[in-house]
């Protein structure tokens, strides 16, 4: 059997005396969608931040496709093939849709000074290819949006911003996509639309694995293959949604049942 896409063992992160993430073990197999759930402050986003090199791990190990990526710099994690979105949308609002997606396309674009300043013909060719590529991707999410590639992101409604953020993460063809609460600030209807898009994307990109942090249990039930439940930084349950939802510890911690 091939190595899992992601294997975390004992991943830990302290902030002073606070243990935000306590010895997390987790595996994501190729093509899986894994839900990461738990109450506020249970360490879900911290695990993403440790994984993507924003925070250093205090202990433990993270492997991506069999390669040790613990404490790599954020840039190196991205180069390896992990892309993410953020809980609070972190798009560059004054820039256009296309510009924002190109930020995510960084590893596939030529960044030499000479190329960019003086080989404008070669640049124009690369630009055309990148544009077609980005428009194709946006079209999967929303066809009208693909006709507005040079509009400022700041003028778009929340759902379109989420779509662009996911496009920004997907444009570089990552193997693993980390989605940090994509439904935040959206209506039920919008959330359903976005989840349809995500499922469609997974169908189109062979072997794409996704870890998704979500509060909407409907979303989790619908799209995930497996869930990991965190509480106070510790994993308290793991399995299919129906199994973990029936778990007494999970109900106590998270679903608010006495």
């Amino acid at each position: 059997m091939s190595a899992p896409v992601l294997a975390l063992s004992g991943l830990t992160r302290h902030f002073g005396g606070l243990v935000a993430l306590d010895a997390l073990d987790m595996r994501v197999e190729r093509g899986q969608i894994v839900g990461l759930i738990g109450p506020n402050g249970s360490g879900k986003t911290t695990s993403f931040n440790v994984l993507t090199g924003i925070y250093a791990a205090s202990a433990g190990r993270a492997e991506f496709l069999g390669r040790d990526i613990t404490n790599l710099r954020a840039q190196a994690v991205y180069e390896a093939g992990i892309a993410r979105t953020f809980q609070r949308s972190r798009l560059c609002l004054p820039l256009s849709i296309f510009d924002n997606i190109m930020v995510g396309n960084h590893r596939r674009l030529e960044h030499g000074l000479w190329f960019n300043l003086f080989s404008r013909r070669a640049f124009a060719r690369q630009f055309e290819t990148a544009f077609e590529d980005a428009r194709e991707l946006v079209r999967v999410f929303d066809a009208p949006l693909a006709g507005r590639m040079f509009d400022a992101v700041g003028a778009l409604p929340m759902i379109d911003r989420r779509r662009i953020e996911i496009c920004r993460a997907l444009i570089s063809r990552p193997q693993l996509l980390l989605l940090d609460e994509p439904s935040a600030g959206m209506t039920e209807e919008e959330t359903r639309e976005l989840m349809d898009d995500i499922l469609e994307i997974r169908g189109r990109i062979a072997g794409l694995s996704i870890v998704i942090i979500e509060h909407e249990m409907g979303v989790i039930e619908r799209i995930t293959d497996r869930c990991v439940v965190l509480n106070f930084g510790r994993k308290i349950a793991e399995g299919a949604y129906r199994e973990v939802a029936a778990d007494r510890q999970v109900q106590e911690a998270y679903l608010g049942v006495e």
Partner: protein
Amino acid sequence: MSAAPRAPLWPGIVAAALVTAFAVAFMWAENEWEVVGVLAAALVAVLVARRTGWLAPAARAFEMREPAMNRVTIVALLVFIAFFHDDHFPLLMVGTVLVYFTVCLGLTIQFGYSGVMNFAAAAFLGTGCYTAAVLSAHTSLPHLLVLAAGGAVAALVGSILILPVLRTRGHYAAVVTIAFGLLFRTFLEVNDTLGGPQGLKLPSMKLLGMTFNDNFSVAGIEFSFYMHYVLTALALAVLAFAVTRRLERSWIGVSLDAIRLDETASACFGIHIARWKIVAFTLGNFMAGAAGALYALMLGFIAPTNFTFGDSLVMVSIILLGGIGNAWGAALAAAIVVVLPEKLQLIQEYRFLLYAAMVIVVLLYRPEGLLPRPLRNYLPGWRPR
């Protein structure tokens, strides 16, 4: 989708012609009342043009037909200086505007694109000036190389600031550069080798066998010697403008903007923040230094009082006034800020007050500047199929 027709060029040409006519009238105006009259007329004209929607086609010509409009602008400037071909003062003004413009293009890359604050632009300009003074007095280095050396030394001096600038953000980075600017002037004042408070004199610039400080005549028409410097300054400004524009319209431009807007997100998409900040800072300082070298040769005399903190603030206010990150805005604002106090002797003494008032008014009523930066247009005239 059918291909949209190309934007017509003529509204841009008409606008350039009108601006040139205004500039000539303004420069020709003898007394303060005439100057104020010309200014008022221009202001009314702009407001009327905006109301009637005549401004939009001109703006579209500049946006969609940029390569052609760049040439039109150069021609317009050449027409303007042809009017004053034997008059020292207006030519010196134009040369100064072009030098300031070049420095502000450097600031645009630093502050407008990558978000690195630089409140020591005058110090980097001064580094280029003093480099030119020393090299032209003590070596026989060809003067074209002196310009490059001015840029190189400014970039090199800037590199001592890189570590503190990278480690600090926002206001703190600004304080680092302010401190450097103050140090620079003090250093010049106590340094006797560099002339101390008295400053240094420079010999005439020589290029291609021409001595720039001699008046000359072509086909019986007398030209002021400043014409040499103005044309050289124009060449330098055009070069800096081309580099700035291409940088903006490239993947590097996207990365610099991303760094300015969100460092964490940028890092998560592979952008090496320190590398690009260093590139932007160094490139900007190089432009300031090269412009400085030419400035010193043009003035023929430099002293520490030319490079005060106040002058650095003037550069920053040009950027704010013109529209942060817009190279065209920097050109317009440089012209306003440099020429206005010279023509209105009345306000000369209060010019810093005037600048401050202008910046406050702009930030209050038009925070994105006179010419707000448009969205990135990678290939002018390009339309998606």
